[in-house]
Structures are given as C-alpha cells and as structure tokens.
C-alpha cells in the first residue's frame, strides 16, 4: 500500500510524458474546416472576374442541380496543379463555379489561358468577403453545393487525381 503511494506519482508523470512525447510525433493538422458545411450558402453577389464569364451570386445555386464551387487565385501554385482535375470534372458534365480571391482580371485571364477554363461563372472576391462568409481559410478549396443551395461538402487543398471520383460521388449524393 505504502509502495503504491510512493510510486504512483512517478507512474503518473511517466505516463504523462509518454503521452506528450507520442502526441509530438503526430503531424499537426493545419486545416481549419468550415463549420458552414450543412448550412445554406450565405447571400452574396460578385462581379465577373473575367469578361467572358458571368459573375457569381448565391441565388445561382438553388437551381435543383448540384454544382462545385471552386475557390482559387491566379497567384496560387496548387490552383494550377489542380487544373487538370477540374478539367476532368468539367468533362464529366460537372458545373463548376469559380471565385477568384484577390486577383486582377488580366492575371485571371492569363491563368485560364495557360491552364484551361473549366468554369461556367467566375466571381471576383477582392476582399475575401465571400471566402470568410463560407468559412474557407485558403486557396484552393472546393465546395459541393447541393441543388437547394446548401453547402454539402468541403475539400481543402488542391484536388488530386485520386479525389476526382470522390467528388463525383459527393455531387451524386448532393442531388
């Protein structure tokens, strides 16, 4: 009994250090997930980011058809990396709306000329207002918006080739 009372604090300390050491070896989760998933898209109206595509407003989403909402920027390197995947999704008949964050029209146009333009509409968000309103914390991010205009899913970071079928499934579920 006495021995137990003597060793217990040490055992507790070693246990705590072990746990702390173990947690230190785990990589830090840098992603801040949006809490807006499951909620309706907040109200917004954005001017066109390029002359040859219309701008974007929240009312364009509750049309009965699920769409992808891609948050991107011409100055963002992973956004260029996900371009082939967006192209593949568009080729499968997915309607992709874009929001260009803090971007100049000529830079967006040059970006699209170089990497392809999979968007049916692109709104310009020069003050990250819509980005903040939907709980997005970086570029690129891709949201699945269901036919009722509700945010159904958030993909953080660039879309890799292996994510394409997952997004197609999420779109199917959001019908």
């Amino acid at each position: 009994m006495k021995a137990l009372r003597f060793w217990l604090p040490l055992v507790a300390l070693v246990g705590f250090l072990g746990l702390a050491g173990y947690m230190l070896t785990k990589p830090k989760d840098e992603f801040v997930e949006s809490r807006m998933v499951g909620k309706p898209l907040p109200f917004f109206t954005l001017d066109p980011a390029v002359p040859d595509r219309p701008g974007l407003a929240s009312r364009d989403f509750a049309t009965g058809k699920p769409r992808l909402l891609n948050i991107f920027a011409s100055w963002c390197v992973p956004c260029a990396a996900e371009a082939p995947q967006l192209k593949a999704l568009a080729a499968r008949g997915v309607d992709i709306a874009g929001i260009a964050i803090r971007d100049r029209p000529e830079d967006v146009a040059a970006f699209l000329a170089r990497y392809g333009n999979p968007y049916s509409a692109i709104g310009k968000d020069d003050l990250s207002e819509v980005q903040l309103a939907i709980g997005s914390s970086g570029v690129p991010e891709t949201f699945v918006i269901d036919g009722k205009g509700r945010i159904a899913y958030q993909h953080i970071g660039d879309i890799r080739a292996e994510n394409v079928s997952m997004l197609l499934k999420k779109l199917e579920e959001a019908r």
Partner: protein
Amino acid sequence: MRWALVPWAILTMLAAPAGAQDSMPPAPYAYRQLDDAAQEAKARALMETLRCLKCQSQSIADSDAPMAGDMRSQVRIRIAAGEEPEAVRAWLIERYGDYVSYKPEMSRSTWPLFAIPLLLAVVAAVILARRLRGRA
C-alpha cells in the same frame, strides 16, 4: 578568398523563400484605423484575440498575410457599423469554430481545463490542513 563568400552564404540562408501572394492592394481598413478612437480601441482589442487562419500562431492584428488584412478590414467595418465585438467573434466562430478565437471560452470540451486546477487546489488545501492539524 573563399572565406570572403561566407557572409554571402549566410545572407542567402536568411532570405525567406518567396511565398505565393497576390499583388492586390490591401483591403480599405486592413492598415487604416477607424476615425472614432473608441471604436478603433474596440476593434483592436477584438483583432488581438482572433486567429490568423493562414499563419495560425499569430493574431490577425499581428499578421501581414493578405487574408488577415481582409479580416481586419471586415472587423473594423462591422465595428464602425455599430456591431458589438462579441457579435463579430460569434460570426467568425460560426464559420471557423472556436479555433478562430484566442479568447478562453468554457465549453463542453474545455471545462476540464478550468475545473482541474480548482480541484487540485482543493486537494492540496485538504492535504495541507490535515498535516497541519496532525502537527498541532
């Protein structure tokens, strides 16, 4: 001769890698204070307790990231429009969760942080009282 290159080598190491960043001008109230000093003080106090989402160990008041500037601008515009700081904080928490706020909040997941020190203090007081009584 070779040693003459050392300072250059050190300077090269110090140079920060160019991060992906836009070339747009900052948001209107990213670096501009509100004209009303009382409102600016309110906005300032709030900004110091909001986390920059791009640079997660800094507050938006501390960060020069464009997104932090956009958040500051939005905070200032909302405060200037008469919104209460706690309402702005609640708006952001609704979007990003408790993580966006540095202000300690008692919630279902954080209450042990507040309860355990109190509990330990009580235990310490009981032990101390018993020992002192035994001595007297």
